[in-house]
């Protein structure tokens, strides 16, 4: 599996560390109810098919949101977390 880093181009999967579902980008407010924090930290749609998840490219230090198919491992897009690379 090769992953397109917005900074470095197509790179080997071994250069990347997987973090988890892109749900981690939607952090609740500090005073949000406990249920919101439980959803944020633990509960997942966990789709069989198209998903968005977070990867870290170790050599360049970029956080990436990857659009991926969990059934085929096909990658359809990658954006830097927080905007421009």
């Amino acid at each position, binding site marked *: *599996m090769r992953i397109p880093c917005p900074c470095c181009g197509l790179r*080997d*999967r*071994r250069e990347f560390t*997987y*973090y*988890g*579902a892109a749900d981690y980008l939607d952090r609740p407010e500090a005073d949000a109810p*406990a*249920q919101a924090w*439980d*959803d944020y*930290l*633990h*509960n*997942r*749609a*966990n*789709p*069989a098919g198209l*998903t968005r*998840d977070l*990867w870290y490219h170790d050599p360049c230090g970029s956080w990436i949101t990857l659009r991926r198919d*969990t*059934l*085929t*491992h096909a990658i359809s897009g990658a954006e830097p977390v927080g905007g421009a690379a």
Partner: protein
Amino acid sequence: MGKAFQGANVGYSGFRVLWEGLRGNRGWQPAWRKPDPRPEYDVVIIGGGGHGLSTAYYLARNHGITNIAVLEKGYLGSGNIGRNTTIVRANYFLPGNSEFYSHSLKLWEGLESELNYNVMHSQRGLINLFHSDGQRDAFARRGNAMLAQGDDAVLLDREGVRRMLPYLDFEQTRFPIYGGLYHPRGGTARHDAVAWGYARAADRRGVDLIENCEVTGIDILDGRVRGVQTTRGVIRAKQVAMVVAGRSSQVAAMAGMRLPIESHVLQAFVTEGLKPCIDHVVSFGMGHFYISQSDKGGLVFGGDLDFYASYAARGNLPMVEHVMEAGMTLMPMIGRARVLRSWGGIMDMSPDGSPIIDRTPTEGLFVNCGWNYGGFKAVPASGWCLAHLIATGQPHPVAARFRLDRFATGHLLDEEGTGSQHNLH
């Protein structure tokens, strides 16, 4: 005698094998019926794998509930029950896990006579290697916990390991072998046979096993489950259990739930058949490698997750390479064995690495999921405990901590002590 020997209601025995052998094996019958679904059941179990079938069996055996359908979208045992590395053990540390897996191992030990089915349970012993003084202390503590639970554990020093596993590379310097925690009652079983044995035994008690029947919806009215929509029509039910590890999130979504589950692929491998050479189950935690030899002779081994969410049932090459390297580091003697095939199982990974057997917010709807790497050995106790919960409305004492809400309340079962987050187990 002809009448008495017909149908699936006749037990298997050595005498039966001899008798059928003498008459050309014409008397064998299918091991279970293939009924059409009836319009209504007391209990519908979604998922005809090990856990679903054992749940049905123990509902019938322990609680006298036999008006049950097990719905399987493929064929019985087509999921993770046939995609694991067949290891059976009870070497857990935490209260909550310890007594559950202890109960499961005791059920394994009587399983073949219980089911009248040869599941080839082989208590060949399991050895977890350690490679530092700190790890020795941790394993000694774990061994004491196992003894306190009433199970067995022996702390081996380096020479003790060498006597049992002379083929390991004791000279390597990266992970020198300090010793191992030996669990004599651990071992393996024939994975498919476990599904078939429970299926046949449940069928004989009147449970309907319905294959090629995919659940497409869960009917809920006024907060109470009413039944399921399937590819073979509507089936009404007073109680429904989702026992579909590997696809838990999709089925739970039909009931409007988001589970604390992320699905990952775990790869395993088998070599060509060899003469007997590895007599135990050996696990090498530092290299993420564990191995046993099947009765057919193949070396069955595996490693760690690929570590990204996946339903692909196959992994990527970096983990293949990693597992092979770990194997060669530990036991160079296997280097010339040819790998026959590899496969991936889809693991329900929970944030703390422990399973869930619980009610759901919908009345009459139950969930059994989150088995991480540990589903196979749990098959008997998982069914036993879920059946108890369905039949009595109360969690079984040995599974009372496998709660769905424990991530919100903080009552975690974090066996590895790494934290409650999806990418840590």
